[in-house]
């Protein structure tokens, strides 16, 4: 049992809160049923299902707090986890930054649950893998892929009377198709709340097509190039930038948003004026839970508007210290796009590189948000409006801040999961000039 209904969750949480002997407590209950299938070498390799639920209890005495978790729900276990959190709280020194839990908040409607996804069976997953493998075999490529679906619930309650509940579903599919001669590789990713939007055959064919067209790639010199970044390529760089838009490090002088001499770049134009980034939990393509893990209500909000930093994220403590409203971290991010299709963007490119995805992105310098990483699974040279030939993969060293200043064209938007962090993105295809590639890789 892991998918507690709203009433079941309320009953468990009420019981836990009643066990509390501390000044107060906040309790989070999460449960998930996760199913997956993984295949490689045109054959299923592993598959499984997991059900688990976790209870997180934070107890506090004054400004001393402790947290404990457990995944058992009999009365004795519930009391035990409360006692352990209280014991830890008693041991902790006072934390002047501790914020008492919030009273009841008003949340918007949630649209994160789709029933079809919650009904996925092992046979559905097996057939999806078989379908993808069959398409691959027919084209002389080797399929590797992963389908994972999750139905989850999250609920929280605290001693101030706050209660929140959300139910959510998600399905993510990725596939890598490699030509049997090992000289070509293509990749695709799809991510939805509702599995009825997922077309395994369509997705597999995209990856197969990239693999076949990326055979026998030619090496070109590293340097600065105009690039067309598919949304899956830019997602992780943009996610990293977003995750670094916290107010506190900016105020403390240790962020890319810190200013020389003190202060932050909030309110300043630091990107091309066509860059608009916002969050909206009710967005139909990338719905997000209507509340944050600390119980704050999520709402629609600009992050970057016309290239200007409009909001940076203040946790409750930092907001109180700076006498501003807290700005919770968003549950999704949407970047405005344009009307150009990928074909339009290629047609309008004299000389450039089409990038399917980046891989192994790591911070090089937090001061400038410089990242390094490599292209992977489909990198193509564009000349005079046409894809001319596949090229060998490159290592890049680039900052998303520089990248969003070197914007040429915005294209259509696509939902992408940016690889962790629990935030889904709706991002446009982008054409960027002077993107810095620093070395060649032999990897295929």
């Amino acid at each position, binding site marked *: 049992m892991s998918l507690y209904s709203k009433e079941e969750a309320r009953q468990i949480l009420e019981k836990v809160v009643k066990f509390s002997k501390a000044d107060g407590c906040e309790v989070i209950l999460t449960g998930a049923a996760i199913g997956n299938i993984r295949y*490689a070498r045109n*054959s299923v390799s592993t598959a499984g299902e997991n059900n688990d*639920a976790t209870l997180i209890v934070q107890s506090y005495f004054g400004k001393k707090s402790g947290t*404990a978790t457990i995944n058992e729900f009999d009365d004795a276990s519930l009391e035990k986890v409360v006692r352990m959190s209280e014991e830890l709280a008693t041991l902790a020194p006072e*934390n002047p930054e501790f914020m008492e839990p919030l009273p009841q908040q008003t949340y918007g409607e949630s649209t994160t649950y789709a029933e079809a996804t919650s009904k996925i069976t092992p046979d559905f997953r097996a057939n999806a893998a078989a379908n993808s493998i069959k398409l691959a075999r027919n084209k002389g490529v080797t399929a590797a892929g992963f389908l994972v679906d999750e139905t989850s619930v999250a609920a929280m309650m605290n001693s101030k009377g706050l209660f929140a509940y959300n139910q959510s579903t998600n399905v993510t599919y990725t596939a890598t198709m490699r030509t049997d001669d090992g000289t070509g590789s293509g990749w695709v990713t799809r991510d939805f709340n509702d599995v009825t939007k997922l077309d395994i055959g369509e997705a597999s064919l995209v990856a197969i097509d990239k693999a076949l067209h990326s055979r026998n790639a030619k090496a070109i010199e590293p340097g600065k190039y105009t690039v067309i970044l598919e949304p899956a390529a830019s997602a992780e760089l943009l996610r990293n930038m977003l995750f670094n838009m916290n107010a506190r490090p900016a105020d403390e002088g240790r962020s890319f948003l810190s200013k020389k001499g003190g202060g932050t770049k909030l309110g300043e134009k630091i990107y091309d004026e066509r860059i608009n980034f916002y969050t909206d939990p009710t967005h139909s393509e990338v719905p997000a839970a209507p509340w944050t893990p600390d119980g704050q209500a999520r709402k629609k909000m600009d992050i970057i508007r016309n290239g200007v930093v409009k909001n940076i994220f203040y946790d409750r403590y930092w907001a109180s210290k700076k006498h501003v409203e807290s700005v919770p971290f968003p549950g999704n991010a949407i970047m405005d796009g344009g009307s150009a299709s990928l074909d339009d963007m290629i047609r309008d490119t004299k000389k450039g590189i089409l990038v399917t995805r980046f*891989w192994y992105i790591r911070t090089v310098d937090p001061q400038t948000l410089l990242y390094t990483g*490599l292209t992977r699974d489909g990198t193509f040279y564009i000349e005079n409006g046409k894809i001319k030939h596949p090229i060998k993969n490159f290592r890049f*060293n680039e900052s998303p801040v*520089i990248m969003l200043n070197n914007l040429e064209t915005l294209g259509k938007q696509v939902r992408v999961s940016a690889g962790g962090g629990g935030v889904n993105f709706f991002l446009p295809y982008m054409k960027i000039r002077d993107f810095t590639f620093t*070395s060649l890789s032999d990897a295929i």
Partner: protein
Amino acid sequence: MKRRKFIELTGLGIGGMLIPVIGNSIPITLAAEERLDASQKKKLADVALNAAKSMGATYADVRIGRYLNQFLTTRENKVQNIVNTESFGVGIRVIVNGTWGFASTNIVTEDAIKSTSQQAAAIAKANSKFQTEPVRLAPAKAHGEVIWKTPIEINPFSVPVSEKVDLLLRANAAALEKGANFISSNLFQVNEQKYFASTDGSYIDQDIHRIWPTFTVTTTDRNSGTFKTRQALSAPMGMGYEYMIPKAKDKVQGPEGITLYRNSYDLIEDSIAAAQQTKAMIGAKSVEPGKYDIILEPNHLGLTIHESVGHPLELDRVLGYEANYAGTSFATMDKWKAGNFNYGSKIVNIFADKTQPRSLGAAGYDDEGVKCRQWDLIKEGVLVNYQAIRDQAHILNQNESHGCCYAQSWSDVQFQRMPNVSLTPGKDKYTIDQMIRDVEKGIYIAGRGSYSIDQQRYNFQFGGTLFYEIKNGAIAGMLNDVAYQSNTQEFWNSCVKICDETDYRLFGSFFDGKGQPSQVSAVSHGSSTTRFNGINVINTARTI
């Protein structure tokens, strides 16, 4: 339970900062108690195995796991959080119709275990319709009922939280006193209590401990708008709290007064050094890009070994099982079969070892019941073996698993994971000082930094924690903005000198990721300080 007292300490010169004084020992008794005894676990395991067999399983294993973690998080003079986590459950893996199936549950009752076995068998059956390569398991010895424990001296979970918090806060205070603007410090403690049983006749009870103290010190310069950070030079270890008690014999002196650590760690000393070094970094020279002879100390080199040797020699990557996530490998089977593939120079000997004392990967048995051991991967520069588990050994024409199967939790399926992979020290007596004296134009790099490598493990780029320029056999000052780029085979073939065993120590990766769904594992890498000639160094400074 007594509440701790707080007093204002002025002896450290930290003004009004409140520092907790260690109170009475308050064991988190609930965390230390056993959940089930061995006979109860055996009984439940047999329920799982029998249920699987009755569903047509030709093989089954069951892992009853209890995973305890304690994470302490502080910044400056504040404890941000103290978190105890506990996870308890059962994972069951079966082979039906030559196909794997896996299911897990957090409800540890006979009924739940029986139905979870049936669920695993049903998944195997569903997938067997599309199976083209039936699973072939290498034979595994039946070990009967055995026990293995990490040989720790002090159980970290029995050390009072107040004592651990006090140590972190004293390190923070010391760094701030020396001029750092910020410090965040953490202590991670992990205990895996796992019971494994299989239809082959093994019942293995293991108790595994790991610990990792770490921090990040930041110094800012408002005038120039710059900031510099320095991570701890500690290593995550397969040890108990004894690692946190500094011992003089475990300190290694590097150049420019750097202190490096072996089997115990001096958190306060290192945080003071970090404060001084971040101050020195502001205004240090920006590196001139070009070719350098680089000297890599073990706390840095461990990560390079991990990425450029550990991962490419995972057999599942080589075969394509990781193609959709972590990637494949340049170290293909034809290179291994040829028997003369020069992975590195003649002095490069790299071995895998799941038994290395104090290492993160040390265990008595892996997560499919195979006894852990040591084996060679690269011998005198030549690729000689991979890392393989029971269902892969036949591919190498080998008749036993290497014993490197692992799952991060009872809820995840076990698969091939990197064992500890280490570089054998040089045979001749050779110190760090001698090595620096022998370099004309070079850079000494200590500590881990940025790291990135392609999906077949050819092209990589690494940063570091501390960089010192070497000119004509002597240190010529600190450098900023350094990263080196190379190709795995070229890099290991440019390895020209390795310090002797007196410099040998472990580096570790606490959260190595692989697989879908992604799982973490912890692994150590031992080495002595090593020199590589003619490596391409880039300058990473930018203006935004």
